[in-house]
């Protein structure tokens, strides 16, 4: 971590003049002394493998929508560095607060893909156990989960657990009032939370310049007294380096940290969206050239940290992962209509018991008929 953060002057809270990057678009090392410690080769190798598997997972999920196995899927293709980097920058007990777009991050975190996809398949609102994985339910009401992350991080601090929280949010969602309130609460309570804005340039169809007139989204931090940084979000080394530093900043009692990652979603908003209505292929092409996997592969190979075997192994693992997912998703999920009445409250109200009983007789009557 650079000295700059503890320098005193408020300008120390501002992001770097240009997004932090360690790698050029083609994966060469950027010249100059980096302002954040370089992640270990081991971490970078893990990131490489996770991105390869993650991208394959993502492609498979998109394919599953075409086969009607998934109702909807918001792809994070193109954002692999952020998806994987955010998870690898955390320790096991740390909390992760995803949006709907973080499916890739969740499988990277080790959650069963079918559990991750339950929301999007439509059989459950949240397929996994948040407490087991320390992962909040995937959140669709935008920016609302950032406030939860602040509260949870504060709770961890109060318990002295040494755990932090990382909350993901999109560029569009930074416009919501809840994002503002989350940053402010986190700063005032010095909650150990990292806010990661994946600025993928669009909120569905709305481009960044309709979203903000700010010099950058990372320039919002100073207005809360929050140390902020912006990074090349397609540079896995930069993502890992800065998010690790941000996590360390939070964990060591310096309060929240805001990171804006410049990236791009290569697919439409979801499979139901049609990106050709609002952007050009040329734009996407340009971003494809900054492919985080290719960049990291080139970098690691050049340094001798990645062999042909490693690359082949990752590819195989990815295929196996996809195959397992296909099989798992072929099985229809188990649905229990009467379960709708469970967990509305700890103990159902008499009214819910009545309603449950009435659905039960309906279902029994139907069954008797068939």
């Amino acid at each position, binding site marked *: 971590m650079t000295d700059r953060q503890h320098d005193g002057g408020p300008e120390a809270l501002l992001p770097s003049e240009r997004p932090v990057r360690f790698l050029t678009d083609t994966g060469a090392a950027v010249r100059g002394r980096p302002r954040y410690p370089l992640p270990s080769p081991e971490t970078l190798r893990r990131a490489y493998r996770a991105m390869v598997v993650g991208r394959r997972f993502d492609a498979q999920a998109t394919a599953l929508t075409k086969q009607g196995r998934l*109702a909807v899927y918001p792809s994070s293709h193109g954002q692999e560095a952020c998806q994987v980097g955010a998870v690898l920058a955390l320790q096991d007990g740390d909390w992760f607060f995803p949006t709907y777009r973080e499916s890739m991050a969740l499988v990277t975190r080790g959650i069963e893909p079918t559990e991750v996809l339950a929301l999007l398949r439509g059989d459950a609102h949240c397929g996994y156990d948040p407490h087991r994985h320390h992962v909040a339910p995937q959140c669709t009401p935008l920016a609302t989960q950032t406030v939860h992350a602040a509260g949870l991080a504060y709770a961890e601090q109060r318990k002295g657990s040494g755990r932090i929280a990382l909350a993901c949010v999109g560029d569009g969602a930074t*416009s919501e009032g809840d994002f503002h309130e989350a940053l402010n609460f986190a700063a005032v309570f010095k909650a150990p939370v990292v806010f990661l804005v994946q600025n993928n340039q669009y909120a569905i169809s*709305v481009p960044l310049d*309709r979203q903000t007139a700010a010099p950058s989204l990372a320039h919002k931090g100073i207005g809360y007294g929050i140390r902020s940084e912006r990074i090349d979000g397609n540079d896995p080394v930069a993502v890992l380096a800065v998010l690790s530093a941000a996590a360390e900043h939070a964990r060591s009692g310096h309060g929240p940290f805001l990171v804006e990652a410049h990236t791009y979603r290569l697919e439409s908003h979801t499979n139901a969206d049609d990106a050709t209505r609002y952007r050009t292929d040329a734009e996407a092409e340009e971003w494809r050239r900054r492919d985080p996997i290719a960049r990291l592969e080139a970098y690691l190979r050049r340094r001798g940290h990645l062999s042909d075997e490693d690359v082949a192994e990752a590819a195989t693992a990815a295929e196996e992962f996809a195959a397992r997912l296909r099989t798992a998703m072929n099985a229809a999920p188990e649905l229990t209509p009467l379960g709708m009445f469970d967990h509305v409250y700890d103990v159902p*109200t008499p009214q*819910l018991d009545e*309603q449950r009983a009435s659905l039960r007789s309906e279902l029994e009557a139907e069954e008797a008929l068939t």
Partner: protein
Amino acid sequence: MTTPSTTMAQALNSALRDALTEDERVVVFGEDVGRLGGVFRITDGLTAEFGEDRCFDTPLAEAGIVGFAVGMAMGGFRPVVELQFDAFAYPAFEQIASHVAKMRNRTRGRVALPMVIRIPYAGGIGGVEHHCDSSEAYYAHTPGLKVVTPATADDAYSLLREAIEDPDPVIFLEPKKLYWSKSQVALPVRTEPFGRAAIRRQGADATLVAYGPTVPVALEAAEAAVEEGWDLEVVDLRTIVPFDDETVAASVRRTGRCVIVSEAAGFAGVGAEIAARVQERCFHSLHAPVLRVTGYDIPYPPPMLEQHHLPNVDRILDSLDRLQRDDRPDPRFLPLGGAA
């Protein structure tokens, strides 16, 4: 001359287009309503046709959208804003309840807010959580708002035009699952004004009261009930506020029985209001309690389970069994006792 087949989505789009053409004070804005034409394409083509000044995208913030519309309405415009889904109107709740609803009253008529808040609402399209709420009760319970929900393409057109022309703020609830339902309508069309319910089917034995997404279900149930010997009347409220007591009460006084069909969780929903009003006004004509067929009192379930949650034909038919046709003389063959 054949009347063309139109979806509700097309009718809404035409209404916006015609309003933009006829009144230059009208502006349309919200999330993704510009180039994309809205996630449901209700604003499709409007930016291209009328320019960025008339139909535009905003930052992603619903309180901002509604509050900005309040300011523009104060400044002489007639904003028509879209909030993308029912549950995503909640961030704007304070602006709606504390300002939109109250501005005319709190300024003693000096500041009017002619504005429309369009909200695609309710379920039945396999949407994930937070995309399927039936939120009409929140608005209907808030004095100062008009609450409108069309069930047919011609009403969609006409009610939206009226909403935009109305001097008061209107919460315009568009039943998502009816967006693609087609009917033969020649646009432009003007149907009945706000405050008039429509009798979609005449019948003598019981009245089904429905609105928005449940109107087609109620009509289907009425057809199915014929087989069981019931001749059902179906009333479509069209506007929840103002409420058409006259049409509803007259129908129930005629039929002596009433079932309300509504998608929202039943508890303290609009269905409760209808039941309360009907029994207040038709008590002596009623042969059975006013019943409700509603969504359960649960968070909207995951898509694969929604069919079990939503009011359906069977559930409406079941409710008829509870109308006690048999434990009393059949009212169709007896003069009504003590009718009001």
